[in-house]
Every structure is written in structure tokens, then in C-alpha cells.
């Protein structure tokens, strides 16, 4: 069965699954972050997404912008670390771009995600190869867009994005960090996967799972 659109309920499910994944993998993310950061990415994301899901389950969103603006604001106040403003901006821009709609089609989601990426770049000033979440988001969205060009099926696009995200994530291992705390480590940051890249890959894994349920 194909998915031409994604509803607010499904997008809520996406965020819930993302929460589940970061929670499940909290120690993996923390381990990654303890190698090249301050060992709080796992707990920060778990806490932040926990707060997001708690909030949307308490008062379910009616529209896409309501959902993502709420999620973004919650992350900003509950994460603490740099992931707060970064993921927060990502979701806020998705919300603003999607507008008060109750569902998105593939081009609509692609445009929203693209705006989210723009927000992350504006906020973090990261470029390709800096060993950040950008190195996952950017190839994932490129793959997503490419898939949307040839098929209206969101599930296909999500799979393509997730595949690219995994590749992007694993490629951060060889990179020298140029942003965030890891950048202080210089050469010593080489050989470790970037924790932000890893959590971003989970975001696409969650999207695949959401759309696979249909």
C-alpha cells in the first residue's frame, strides 16, 4: 500500500517513535558523546523528546504547524545542550513551512524538511564535513527529494532518506570535528561517529517505521 500523504496523527507517531529510539539507544548516544563531547547527548535527547511526547499526548495537535512548533519550543526549553536550539529550530521551521494543514503530501514534507535543514544551518553554521548532524540531514534530504521526484510514495522516500542517513552517519567517523565541543579535540575527534549525526539518523529510522505501519 502506498502512502501519498502523511497525517498529523502519523507525524505525531513519528515523533513518538523518535522518542522511543533515542530512549532505547540512550547509552549508545551517550557513549558516542563521551568519546568526543560531554556525554550528555543521549540523556539530553531522551529528556527533550520525552517532554515533547508527553506534551503532544496530553494535548494532541490538530495541525502540522501546531505539532512541530510545540515540539520545537519544548525541545528548546528542555534539552539544555546545543541539540536544543538545533533540533528546536529544525522542528519550528518544519511547522512554519507546513502551516495549519492536517496532512502533507510527499513534496510538502520534502519542502518542510528542507526548511528545517535551512534552520539548522542558520543556527549552527555547520557545513558539509564539519562532523555534525548536517552530515546526515543534508544527504538524507537529498535522497528524499530525489525519491519524491520519481515517486509520490512517502515510504519510498523515507527509506531512501534513511539509507542515506546511515551512510552519512557512518561517514562522520572519519571526519575531523569543526563545530561544537568535539572541535576542541582536533585530530582526536577522528575515529568516532558524531553523536548528533547518530541521533539524526534515528529520526529517519523513526520515519520509516511510521510509514511502514500503514
Amino acid at each position: 500500500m502506498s502512502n501519498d500523504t502523511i497525517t498529523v496523527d502519523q507525524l505525531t507517531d513519528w515523533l513518538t517513535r523518535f522518542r522511543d529510539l533515542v530512549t532505547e539507544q540512550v547509552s549508545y548516544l551517550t557513549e558516542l558523546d563521551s568519546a568526543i563531547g560531554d556525554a550528555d547527548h543521549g540523556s539530553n535527547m531522551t529528556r527533550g523528546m520525552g517532554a515533547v511526547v508527553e506534551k503532544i499526548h496530553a494535548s494532541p495537535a490538530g495541525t502540522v504547524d501546531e505539532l512541530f512548533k510545540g515540539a520545537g519550543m519544548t525541545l528548546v526549553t528542555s534539552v539544555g545542550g546545543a541539540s536544543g536550539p538545533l533540533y528546536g529550530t529544525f522542528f519550528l521551521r518544519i511547522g512554519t513551512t507546513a502551516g495549519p494543514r492536517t496532512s502533507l503530501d510527499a513534496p510538502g514534507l520534502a519542502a518542510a524538511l528542507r526548511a528545517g535543514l535551512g534552520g539548522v544551518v542558520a543556527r549552527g553554521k555547520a557545513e558539509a564535513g564539519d562532523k555534525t548532524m548536517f552530515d546526515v540531514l543534508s544527504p538524507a534530504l537529498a535522497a528524499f527529494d530525489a525519491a519524491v521526484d520519481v515517486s509520490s510514495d512517502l515510504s519510498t522516500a523515507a527509506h531512501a532518506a534513511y539509507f542515506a542517513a546511515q551512510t552519512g552517519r557512518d561517514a562522520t567517523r572519519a571526519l575531523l570535528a569543526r563545530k561544537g565541543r568535539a572541535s576542541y579535540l582536533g585530530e582526536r575527534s577522528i575515529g568516532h561517529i558524531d553523536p548528533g549525526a547518530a541521533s539524526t539518523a534515528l529520526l529517519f529510522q523513526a520515519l520509516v517505521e511510521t510509514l511502514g505501519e500503514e
Partner: protein
Amino acid sequence: MIGIAVVSHSPRLAQSAVDLALEMVGAEGPAIAIAAGAGDGVTGTDAIKVAEAITEVSSPDGVLVMMDLGSAVMSAEMALEFLSDADVPVKLTSAPFVEGLMAAVVRAAGGASLDDVEREARGALQAKQTHLDDDDDDELPGPQAGPAAEHSIEVALRNPHGLHARPVAMLVTAVSAFEATVTVANVRSGGLPVPANSPTALLGVGARQGDTISVAAAGRQAREALDAVNALVQRGFGELETPGAAAVPEDCAARPDRERSSEASSGGPIGVSPGLAVGPIVRMPEPLAEPAPAPELTLNERAEAVERIEAAAASVARALMDKANRVSGAAREILEVTSMMATDPGLIGDARARVTDDGHTPERAVWAAVGDITSIFREQGGLLAERIPDLHDVRNRIVAELLGRPAPGLPDRAEPYVLVARDLAPADTALIDPALCRAIVTVEGGPTSHTAILARALGVPAVVAARHALEIREGSVVIVDGTTGMIVVDPTDEQVATAEQESGRVVAFDGTGRTLDGHRVQLLANVASPDSVAAALEANAEGVGLFRTEFCFLDHEEAPDVEEQVAAYRRVFAAFPGQKVIIRTLDAGADKPLAFVTAEDEANPALGIRGYRTAWRSPKLLDSQLQAIAIAAAAEAADVGVMAPMIATVDESIEFVSRCADHGLRTVGVMIETPAAAITALDILQVVDFASLGTNDLAQYTMAADRLAGELALLNDPWQPAVLRMIREACRAGVATGKPVGVCGEAAADPLLAAILVGLGVTSLSMSPRALGGVAELLKSVTVEQCRDAAATVVAASSATVARTTAAALLVRA
């Protein structure tokens, strides 16, 4: 005036930086709001909080946003998107967090514009850069030609430390009040004039006491501005007063105030912690400075230099391991890890490379190699950052070894000694083992310095301001009298014998506390567990003024049952038949956490659920305790009183009395440890039978200074006039209601302070048994009238130092 928003990962960091900055300007400072930490005590930043902080200090003149690092910058940028009022200019600055904040606060207080404040803040590293000689950026505000000066004066700086931070702030503030452009130059150093509205530039002038500065001014109010500067300089920026001169009799006033001017040339050593001790001098090694640059080693020298590093590191590792083998538990683990750090291949490899490749001397190579590692640790924060002191310790030990100097830090001795140091850091003082360190002598410091306070707490005699102490040969035997400040070097055998006899003398307490004229003051013992009863009995205590019950609960997963408690309480009650025993209900929380009663994750445990407040959460625990006390009291013949810790309101007192009544307990009191209880003591004493002052907490809460923070020791001093006035308030209530008010804090053990407390109206003093003799002796030498007069003078003192020296002058016989 602009507002300042301070964004940091850590509320503590932000608050400390703000406190530091506000010290410079006092009440006239700009509005400052802190946005630090994310929700629920999470380290990090929250863009919404930042936006709220900006709004809070919003002013038409604008808001400057100071940030520490990482997410702070991103959250601040994000916050700008949330702001609604586009009319308020907001500026994010890349200024250094601490120095920049200080510069910004001072400039803002002077009414400078947002742009000017921001520029000043951004240039705030200049003083440090100039000092460390790494100033390679001439864009920063700094020396520049002054205006065409219409008027100028030359004045010599009189205050002890010249143009340091505080005088600079006063100068900037004074000058900003006038329509004039003012510059300052240091005549001694021949430096260029710098603008007098730039604190960082003024600090860079480096003018010291005795230096002449040239002050030039142009503009309509040039003359007035110069007059104001001149007045400030002549008054020594308010740093010339010798406190005590007014209140203290002549013989005492001759003692210079060491707190303010350690370079003062007259005046002898000051005894600050009473007692007599004899022992050989061990000098505290001077702290190591970064090794000076040295010429590059020749290629031939490098191989040997590398070997020296390895040998020194191995020797330090061995010494640490030996030390580890002599201790156990956590201390052992720490020493073992530190020992391993000394020979860490990364560290040694790095140092070796610096010698082999760059020709650095071994000591510089080790210094730099450790510096690199610590900067990474510091950026990482958390557990890694906590290891930095250990790394510095290792570095200092290796470098000392390389230089053939003694290892820094407290001397590692197995035999008793007298410690001589220039000054002691609180951290060093805290590690002193009173069993080995017989006395402390410092060149610097004053009667209320950390050293003095901690030495008194440890019961170690101490003398400060002993200017020539470092000239005494290491190993010389000295006699130190911590009461008079006398130091006898190389004493005769006879003198040593007398002193040893004297120091070993425990002034016996005859069991009846009284003044010279027979005014009765009960002298009681503090008892922390049934095991400490023997010491109290041996010291002839008149009873127990504070029986702490925490021992019953510590190391327990759950509350002990009533039976267990009854048995423990009876052991203490049984020792004092017919005598007073005041038992205090569980005092947990803050520095005494207990798994089953105290809250976790309190942002500020000292202001949290502690003392009597734990009974809100665990009422049954209190009831079981009261029941056990009632049973134990009924079974023994002691005169038992019960009191609750940390009472803040009359209602709590009423509630406690009624709970005690439920168990048939009739003599019920409360502890007065909060300013709230002290100032409502009159109402509280109407519902309870007695009160007992806990001076340690009362000082902490009155002075708003965490007891556990060594840096605040000067504030946490019961001699602080504010604390003494709190005590006076409670004592007045005691006199008015005819109910006894005792003291069971640290203050009661200081003979001099004990006499002041008696003068204020305290009816009993409870202390550690070993202090009873000394307190009894002093009380017997003065009349209650003398105590009252001294108390009246002391509560009006201008500082803790003045209070103590005044008391000594009035109460200690020459």
C-alpha cells in the same frame, strides 16, 4: 542605563560572575538578568529563558547579551527570534564571559551607550593580555593619545594596591558624572595616557601604591572631574581606614589591620587560634610558577633531558604509590590513579617530543604538555574537568622533582611539626591533620582570614602576620603561642619543657560554669553519639546541651525502630542522672543527607528540606523518635529536654510542642538557626520552654554564605556584627520571657566569643568537651558586667576583625 542579560550553561557560573561584577559597582549597577541552565537543574541553556531575561532587563537604551559557550550562543541567537519588542536594541557580544561582564557592568553603571559598553566588554581581556605579555591585538581599546588637555594634575596613589579593580571602578564612575574627557597615565612607567572611562585600559596602566599618575582633562567640567579624581586618590579609594582605631583601646589599635594591608610595615604577629605548641618548623613550599623560558637545548643535550623527564616522572609515581600504600579506601584509589597519571605515556610522550623536536627544557616541556591536556579536560567539563587539580598536582610534583625542589602542597610528614607558610589556601588548610600539625604560622593573613577560622575549628594554635617567619631555618624548633602571637625560635630546653607542660595542660573545668563575680553560666557538652559520653564526663560537663541523634540514622537504609533508638538514647541519658540533657531530633538534609528522609536533586539543599522540615515528609519518623525519647527519658534520671532543629516559624514551634506533648514530653525547645527564628524569638519563646542558638547555621543564613564554601569563610564567621546582632535579638527575647537561651554552635567553644555571648544574655554554652576548660577559665576571669559592656561594644563593631580585636582588648588580661 542599558540592561545586561547573562547566558550560561551553569547557574552557578553565571551567578558568581554576576556577583563578581556587581562587587565593582554596588547598588548603582545596571539591571542584570541571568538565563542559565535548562529546566529542572539541567546544565545547558534555554532560548526561551534567554528571551525572558532580555525582556526583564529591557530598556530603551538597549540590552547587552553576554554568553559563555556552545549552546549559549545558539540559544541567545534563537532568543532574538522570540522577542516581540523590536524597538529595544539588543546586542550579542563575543566578549569574554567573566572579564567582559565586569567591564560591561562598570561601563553600563556609568551610563555608557550600548555600543560603548559592548566595545569595552569585547576589549576586556586587555588587562590580562598586557599582564601576560600576549597582547598582539592593537584594535582593542587601550593606550591612545588623550584629548588636548586643558587641565592636568599629578597625584601619588596612596592605597595599598594602587589602581586595582575596585578603585578603577570608582574612578570610571566618578569621571562619568562630568562633562569632560579624562585620561590617566602612569608617570613611573612612562606609559601613554588611557581614557579614564575604560576600566580595562585603566587596569592596564598598572599603577601601584606610591606611583604618581598624571590625570588630564578637557571639556566643560574638566576641573570638577579632576577634583573628583584627586579626592578619590587622596582618600585612597576608601582603602586607607584602619578599622578598630576608633573602638579599640590603644594597646590593641597598634596592631595593624592585616586584612587590608599585608605589606604594612609595623606591628607584630597576631595570635588567632589559642593554644601553645612546640615543634620543628616545616616550611610550606612556595607555589611553583611556570618555568621561565630558557634557551633551546642543543641536540646533544636533548637525550639526557628526555631521560631526566622519565626519571622524574617515575620517581613521582613511586612516591605517590608509596603514599597510596599507606592509606586505604577512596584516598588510596585517588593516589593510585594520580600515580599512574605521572607516567602516562601520552603525557610523557608529549613532553619528550617537546624536548626532542623543539629543544624545550624538561620542566617547560612537562608544564606545556600538562597544559595541553588540562585545556582539553576543561573544555570537556564534567568528570574530566574534575581531574584537572590532580593533573596540576602531578605536573607540580614532576617539575619540582626536575628543579630539585620539595614537592608542593602540604608537607608529607610522619612526625609532628609546626607549619610555616606565606599564606594558606583554604584547600590546604582543610587538609591539615591536627594530630601532626601542631601549630600554623603564616606571614600573611589576619584574625578573620580562612587560616584563622579553620585553625580555630581544628583546634590548632595559629599565628598570622608573622612577617619574618619564612626566615626561620627549616627544622628549627619553635614555641608558638596562638593566644599572644609569640613565637620563640630555638628555645632553651627549659622553655621547651615549660611549654610542653603548658601545651599538654588541659585546663580543668571544675564542673560549675561562672564568671568572676559568680554569675552562673551552664557549661555543657555536645555529644554526637553514646560513644562520646565518656569525653563529656571526663571534662566535667554540667550536662549535655546538644545530643545529636543523627548517629542513630546514618548508614541506615531505613529508619531504625523505636527499640533500637530507646537503647541508644538511654546510654546517653544514663550517664547524666539529675543533669540536663538536651536531645535534638533528627537534623538531616543539606550537608547531612539521609537516604530515607532527604530530597534528592534539590537545587539548593541548604535552603531546602532539612532540619525540622524533613518531618513534613516523614512525620512518622519524628513521631517514632519522640516516642523513643519519651520512653528512654522515663527509664533514666536525666533532666531531658527535646528540641527541634531549623525552625523558621512560630507555627512550626507550636506544632512541635504539640507533637512532643502527645508523647508526654514536657520540656520542649527549638533551635534558633535562621534569621527568621532569631527575629521572631519573642513569639517563639512564648510557646516553647527554651531555645538554643546554632551559630554555624545562623551565620550561614544571616550572611547568605554557604558554610561549605571555603571561599566564604570570612563571611561565615560568628564574629560578624550582623550575626552577633541576630544573637542579641534572640537573647533579648530570652530575658523578656524569662526563658533560657543557650548556644550550641562553634561560637560557644571560642572563649572570647563565649564571654560576649554571656554578655548578650546567653544562659548556657554547649561545646565539644575539650573546649570546656578554656571557656570556663576565661569566664572565671571576667565579671558579667565586663561581658555586658564588651558585648555592647562588639555588636556595634564595623567588621568581624574589629569585633574580635575589640573583645580581646576588653576581656583578656594583659
